[in-house]
């Protein structure tokens, strides 16, 4: 079972990963966007860390809805609403439970990803964060490691794609050959699940 503390560790691990990789995310964004994805995400997750420390939410669902709300309030750009909606809707789908199973988390994250799909109007293959999230959700019930690997593969898989959404879409053919920064940061979020579960717990049981 995954308790509230696990969800706080997940957010903290995401914040640490985003902080560590901020320069790489910004470099990816410089190639096909406007060179600010790393700094925006770092600012957002730093705020999430802050508020989770102050408000000490008591259920997995409130950890994520609180995190989502603060991402919306601090990130800006497209990433704020998209990441914010992802976590808020995932949190809402978890309901009031004080502990959830990995399967319940997989279902809830699926609902979060569906909300992102609806908000951004993107589909698989459009070279967006969905290209990392959709394959991750599919195997999340198996293990967190499988989800992490699927998200990473999905992010790398955006390299040969042509962007159809967001600012990179204006580059047309020239967006081909670059990894989507949103998919890269989504892979960090999913990878942080395995970190939160800890090395000994393997599949997050």
């Amino acid at each position, binding site marked *: 079972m995954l308790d509230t503390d696990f969800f706080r560790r997940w957010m903290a691990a995401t914040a640490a990963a985003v902080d560590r990789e901020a320069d790489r995310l910004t470099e990816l964004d410089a190639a096909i966007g406007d*060179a*600010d994805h790393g700094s925006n995400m770092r600012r957002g997750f730093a705020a999430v860390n802050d508020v989770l420390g102050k408000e000490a939410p008591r259920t997995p669902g409130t950890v994520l809805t609180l995190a989502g709300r603060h991402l919306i309030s601090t990130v800006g750009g497209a990433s*704020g*609403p998209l990441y914010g909606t992802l976590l808020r809707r995932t949190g809402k789908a978890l309901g009031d439970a004080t502990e959830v199973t990995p399967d319940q988390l997989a279902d809830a994250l699926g609902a979060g990803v569906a909300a992102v799909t609806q908000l951004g109007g993107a589909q698989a293959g459009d070279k967006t964060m969905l290209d990392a999230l959709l394959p991750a959700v599919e195997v999340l019930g198996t293990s967190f490691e499988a989800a992490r690997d699927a998200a990473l593969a999905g992010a790398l898989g955006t390299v040969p794609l042509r962007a159809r959404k967001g600012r990179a*879409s*204006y580059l047309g053919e020239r967006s081909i050959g670059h990894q989507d920064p949103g998919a890269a940061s989504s892979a960090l979020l999913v990878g942080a699940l395995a970190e939160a579960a800890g090395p000994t717990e393997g599949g997050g049981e």
Partner: protein
Amino acid sequence: MRMLINVPETVVADGLRGLAAAHPDLVVDVDNRVVVRRDAPVAGKVGLVSGGGSGHEPLHAGFVGPGMLSAACPGEVFTSPVPDQMVRAAAAVDSGAGVLFVVKNYTGDVLNFDMAAELAEDEGVQVARVLVDDDVAVSDSTFTAGRRGTGATLFVEKIAGALADEGAPLERVEAMARRVNESARSFGVALSSVTTPAKGTPTFDLPSGELELGIGIHGEPGRERRPMMTSGEIADIAVHAVLEDLRPVGPVLVLVNGMGATPLLELYGFNAEVQRVLSERGVTVARTLVGNYVTSLDMAGCSVTLCQVDEEMVRLWDAPVQTPALRWGR
């Protein structure tokens, strides 16, 4: 990096503090990043709120004041503001007559303003939204996020702002803003890349001796790269691209806009070429504005925006305006 800044993290806040010091007729909330005209909310008047990433100054905060915007929300550099800013701005300017959000068509701006509209309506503010998408360089909108909003934003904010100042109801102000957008098209050219404070090096590599046609305002490369040309040759390409799409049947407003690092001498020279092309094509010019209005940090280059106008639109364009960056008739 040669920038007149302290540290990248405080660029936006520092700029807002300076704006406040220079313009006491604006209320500048530096912490919450909201700029409001001091006399807001004006009784019976529709509030006009716009915003977007910083780095495009004077857009949008420079257009706050009587005759134009009621409030503006500056985001981080090239990053759209967050919904909290827009909700605050809407609440500050709503007199009960409702608020119009003027939104440039970028995914981030659209999503954040949509969320803000929902939140503001929860708080009892009636909100309408108009999307500015005038950039003809983006053609295949099925495969992109759609046309970008650039120079036409100034026309929308000025003309709708004047109508709102006359006390027109929200539906009319919204309809006028939409009509201005539908009547306007832009095309931009970059002569150099932009350098964001956060990155400190040029966003893309544009060798001297080359230019980029069809650029947006965030340093995103455009639709093609060519060897450097004369001002006249650039005007031919830019104006023809706009006219091909707009096909005006009446007079037009002309905006010859600098991207930030091109001197006015060059912009006026370029305007002479723009007017030549328009005259060759038999297009009548109602009014012309030349200057740095919708910029992209230190990018060299320019954009041309044409807006087909009728008598009412010209009258509203000529109406008094008193903002930091646009000021006449008062």
